[in-house]
């Protein structure tokens, strides 16, 4: 069936993209400023220690050889040891990745739901106050960087209106559930501990909202525009002619065709959530991989950078495949290739 072949092709392409990505990352991390050994061992480390660090990490070999050593390790799941934590990077990643994934998944959910709701509302009350509010919101979402929004939200919920906990992943006195998926919310459910689940869920809300706000407002604008564009199509007035209630037309028959252009943009926004999560993590004390990634980038911790970026790349490619599947699912014209 067309769909299986399509999925298979995309997965193959994903592998190609990952290889391309690994080359780009490898080259970029190598030409970044700073001598690797000095950064790794500290500038006061003895020359002799730096020397055998360089040999141990093949830094003197030609670039190509270094790449093969490195990619060989990666395929075996050994990303090498991180110079800052002296531990295998894989262990660090396993510890930090779930926290960021949980934050990003929550932010993605909020982004999808709220952008559709706002988009539909703005389209329904076109050129009225509601439309203007969504429009101004989208500028604020775009103009204000996530760390300013995060700071404002933190101060608001931390000081003025303390109804929701904002810092860290769990309130004091609650112990984290046994690690199964690394997602506190899911682990708590598995462990059947509702109190921890509820607390972990509350902790997720404010950071996830701060992270999603940027993309959320932009998506609402795009959905609103395509809803308006589809508004004057004949099949909607036909539906209206059959007495289908106005609300249902808006929510279902006008929304679905309008989602198509929005979904690809949404996919990219969700994929970039990983990228700009590090600011939100630093402000909300969220022990995620983005903060770890940033410190490794600035401290030129080669192995950690490569691992983090590979994971960002992997997630980006996966999200893209999902987006393409959803678009194909939504729009039969693409999936069936316009079989007249």
């Amino acid at each position, binding site marked *: 069936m067309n769909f299986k072949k399509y999925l298979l092709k995309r997965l193959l392409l994903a592998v190609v993209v990952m290889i391309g990505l690994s080359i780009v990352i490898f080259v970029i991390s190598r030409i970044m400023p700073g001598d690797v050994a000095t950064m790794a061992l500290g500038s006061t480390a003895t020359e002799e220690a730096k020397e055998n660090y360089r040999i141990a990490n093949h830094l003197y070999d030609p670039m190509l050889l270094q790449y093969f050593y490195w990619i060989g390790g990666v395929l075996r799941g050994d990303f090498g040891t991180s110079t800052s934590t002296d531990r295998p990077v894989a262990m660090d990643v396993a510890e930090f990745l779930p926290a960021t994934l949980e934050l990003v998944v929550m932010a993605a959910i909020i982004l999808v739901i709220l952008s559709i709701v706002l988009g539909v509302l703005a389209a329904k009350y076109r050129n009225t106050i509601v439309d203007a509010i969504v429009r101004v919101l989208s500028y604020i979402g775009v103009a204000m960087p996530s760390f300013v929004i995060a700071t404002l939200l933190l101060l608001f919920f931390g000081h003025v209106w303390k109804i929701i906990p904002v810092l860290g992943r769990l309130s004091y006195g609650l112990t984290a559930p046994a690690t199964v998926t690394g997602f506190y919310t899911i682990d708590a459910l598995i462990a059947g501990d509702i109190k921890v689940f509820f607390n972990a869920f509350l902790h997720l809300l404010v950071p996830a909202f701060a992270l999603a706000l940027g993309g959320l407002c932009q998506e609402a604008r795009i959905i609103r525009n395509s809803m308006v564009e589809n508004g004057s199509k*004949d*099949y909607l007035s*036909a539906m209206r002619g*059959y*007495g289908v209630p106005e609300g249902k037309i808006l929510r279902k028959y006008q929304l679905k065709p309008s989602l198509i252009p929005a979904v690809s943009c949404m996919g990219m926004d969700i994929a970039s959530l990983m990228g700009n999560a590090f600011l939100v993590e630093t402000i909300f004390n969220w022990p995620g991989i983005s903060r770890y990634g940033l410190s490794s980038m600035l401290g030129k911790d080669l192995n950690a950078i490569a691992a983090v970026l590979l994971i960002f790349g992997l997630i980006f490619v996966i999200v893209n495949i999902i987006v393409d599947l959803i678009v194909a699912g939504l729009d*039969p014209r693409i999936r069936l290739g316009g079989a007249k």
Partner: protein
Amino acid sequence: MSNEKTPILEIKNLKLWFKVYKGYSKVLDGVNITVHQGEKVGIVGEAGCGKTTTVKSILGILPEGQYVIPEGEILYKGEDTLKMNSRQLGKVRSGEISMIYQEPSAALNPVFTIGQQMMEVAKNSDQGKGKTKAERREMVLNAIRDVFIPDPERIFDYYPVQLSGGMKQRICIAMAIMTQRDLMIADEPGTALDVTIQDQVHKTLDRLVEERDMALIMITHSLGVARELTDSINVMYAGTVVEAAPTAELFRKQLHPYTIGLMEAVPRLAGGGIQAGIYGSIPDYLYPPKGCRFAPRCPRATEQCLENKPELVDVGNGHKVACFNIEEV
């Protein structure tokens, strides 16, 4: 032979202007049409004379905020649809009137299957409201069978993009006749199709209307189609009805110069090629002529025609015409 049944739909002196770049395009200039219970009424006229606008205004599905109705009313079973609130109008749309569109591929939502769309219509129609899902599905499949489409189960899960033009138009018809309706509006159902399919579509339409004793408004720009399918015909020109009469009466004797011109323009199988057309083209609705809108093209135009608009007057056995100088029969 206008039958004495109670009139189901009366459009009285309907005027409609569209907001445009430089002002208001005055498309409808006092339309008067009456449709009786179970009567099949034809509306004939050149493209752009306001046929579709008229019928769309009945159901009120013209694009929001771009038109203005200065005068006129549309009485459906005595109630003026223009004054109805959305609940009343909803009732009319879900149970009383249904419509078939001219352009089949634009009338079906590209991202939903045929089944999904028809189930939705069924769900909101009077008969379908109480029914369970399975019963409604049965209604849909029956409707598809009524329009001679083989293997309805397969079509149910198809997307519009997978169907041909003719099939799509028949689906639209199926949608319209799926539930018991009192008035059916068909806006040039066959124009987008080739002749053989067109003929099939018209025959299906005619049979269903007869069976269900529905009133029909058939819009077409071909007199041949009107002759076969309708009881009476209204000839529209530039936003007004210039002549209306029972079909046989109209073909026997045309009174209004435009109708005469129209009749002559029909290519005769027997005669040699295209007869003389009508000189000139439809007026600019932005700056329409003051008096009768056909005056600039009318061979018999007089001073009076230029100044004031002729009223639609009954000259005997249901034959109405809007012209000052009618040649005596």
